[in-house]
Every structure is written in structure tokens, then in C-alpha cells.
């Protein structure tokens, strides 16, 4: 890895400071709003959509001649890529009532996120340098599927909440003593 990053590595790394620092502010704001409005799915999907546009354009545009556009895309990309990594664990945690169940569910989520890391390091192949188009496309396709999955989960939880509201389902395991319990969406 280090060997592959040659002389202009330092400079390339310095250029990532801008997008990453801006992303910190954007991510904190997104998570704060998500907490405030008690919505996980919309914020996860929205932030991934923004970063997906960044990945797609980074892989499809001629960036050597449009350098400023390219640099702007890296901002777009960092704005949303990390946000679901904060929102999804918060979401699965709050919808898993038992403490032991939560521990297992969060462990599973964290394990799968790291498996994603393995896929990531496999798709950036040396022969695709310098643009790594197949890798950029892979990332955006994965993010597209993520948006669909997020929507499916939200629809399921909306349906479950409706059953709770109608009184069709009387008790949720682990939260028997909270009659007003609703799932996080």
C-alpha cells in the first residue's frame, strides 16, 4: 500500500484534508438532524445518494481537463459516504429491545461493514490505475442497492408501527411495559 503511494502521496493526502474536514461538519449536522427528527432511513438514503452521485461522476467524467470539478466531487463523496456507518448502528440498536440482542446485532453490523472493506480492497486493482473506473462503479452500485434496502426496511417498520397503532400487535418482546412503543423509522 505504502509502496504504491509514491512521491506525490503527501500532496494527494493533503488534498483529502479539505473534503474530510468539511465532511465532519456535514456529518455532524446530518446526524444531529436525524436525531432531532427521529428519522434514520431518509437521512441514510439521502446522504448515500449525494455521495453516490460523487462516485458515479468521478468514474465517468474526464477529470484531467476539469480539475476543479473533480476536486468538488471528492467533497460530494465524503459528505455522505460515512454517514450511514453512524446512522445504521443507531437504527438497529434502538429497534432491538434486548441488551444481549443489541450486542449481537451491532457486532453483526460491524462485521459486515468490515467485510465491505475487503471487497473494497479487492476492486481497486493495479491495472485499473489511475482512474479505477471499475472500482468507482462498484462502489456506486453497492450504494444504489443500499438505498433500496434502506427503503425496504423503512416500509417494513412503518407497517409494524401501523399494526402497533391499530392494536393488532399487542406486545413487542422486551418492551411489554411501554404501551406507546413504536419502532424507529
Amino acid at each position, binding site marked *: *500500500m505504502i509502496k*504504491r*503511494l509514491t512521491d506525490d*502521496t*503527501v*500532496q*494527494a*493526502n*493533503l*488534498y*483529502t*484534508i479539505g*473534503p474530510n*474536514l468539511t465532511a465532519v461538519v456535514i456529518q455532524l449536522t446530518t446526524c444531529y438532524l436525524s436525531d432531532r427528527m427521529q428519522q434514520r432511513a431518509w437521512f441514510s438514503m439521502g446522504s*448515500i445518494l449525494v455521495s453516490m452521485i460523487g*462516485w458515479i461522476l468521478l468514474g465517468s467524467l474526464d477529470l*484531467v481537463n476539469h*480539475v*476543479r470539478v473533480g*476536486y468538488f466531487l*471528492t467533497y460530494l*463523496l*465524503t459528505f455522505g*459516504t460515512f454517514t*450511514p*456507518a453512524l446512522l*445504521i448502528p443507531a437504527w438497529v440498536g434502538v429497534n*432491538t429491545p*434486548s*441488551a*444481549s*440482542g*443489541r*450486542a*449481537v*446485532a451491532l457486532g*453483526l*453490523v460491524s462485521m*459486515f*461493514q468490515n467485510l*465491505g*472493506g475487503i*471487497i*473494497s*480492497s479487492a*476492486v*481497486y486493482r493495479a491495472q485499473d490505475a*489511475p*482512474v*479505477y473506473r471499475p472500482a*468507482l462503479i*462498484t*462502489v456506486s452500485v*453497492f*450504494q444504489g*442497492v*443500499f438505498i433500496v*434496502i434502506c427503503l425496504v*426496511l423503512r416500509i*417494513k417498520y412503518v407497517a409494524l408501527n401501523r399494526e402497533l397503532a391499530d392494536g393488532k400487535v399487542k406486545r413487542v418482546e422486551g418492551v411489554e411495559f411501554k404501551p406507546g412503543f413504536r419502532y424507529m423509522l
Partner: protein
Amino acid sequence: MMQGWQYLFLIEGSLTVEIALWALLWLPRSVQASHLFTEEQKKCATLRKVKESESFSWVEGIHVLKDWKVWTFAFSALLYGVGVASSSNFLPVILSHLTENYTKALANIGVSPRL
């Protein structure tokens, strides 16, 4: 004499250490000592802690694995995990072939490359 990338490791690592020290001194010792919660919320947190103080139960833990929603969440983590790892590991590599042009362009629009 250290190489450039060695300085990068030092700078990025020292930020983490700094934040860890700051967190140690600044973060409240407990929910009760925090100013961010109302009295009612603190009471609720205490009660919840008493209720959930039982030790880890494998039966309860394994039970959630029968829920397809948990697996769907896990699968979604795999999907966003690819982007997360790509962004943190490969963004410099993706950018490096444009670095020369970046320097020129950024100098033109008057943006410091160091922010």
C-alpha cells in the same frame, strides 16, 4: 531523516491521541454528572440501567439472528462499508494522478492546498 509518509502517520495519529486526552478530561463521568440531560432523563437512564443489569444472555443474543431485519441491516452495512473503506483508503490514490493539475488549478483560484 523521516520520509514524507511517516510524517503523515505521525500527524494523523497525534490527532487521535489528542482527542482521546481531551475526551478523558472533558466527557462527564456518568449520566448523573452530565449537564446535557434533564432530571427526568437521568432518572430514566438509572432505571434502565437497573433493569438491564443482567449479564449477557446467549439465548437472547442468538434470538435476534432469527430476525431477517437484523440480517438485512447487516447486509446494508456491507453495502455502505465498501464506500467507507474506499473513501478512507483509496481517496488519496484516486486523487494522486490529478495532483499536478490540482496544484495548478488551486493556485489559480487562490485556494491554499493546505486549506
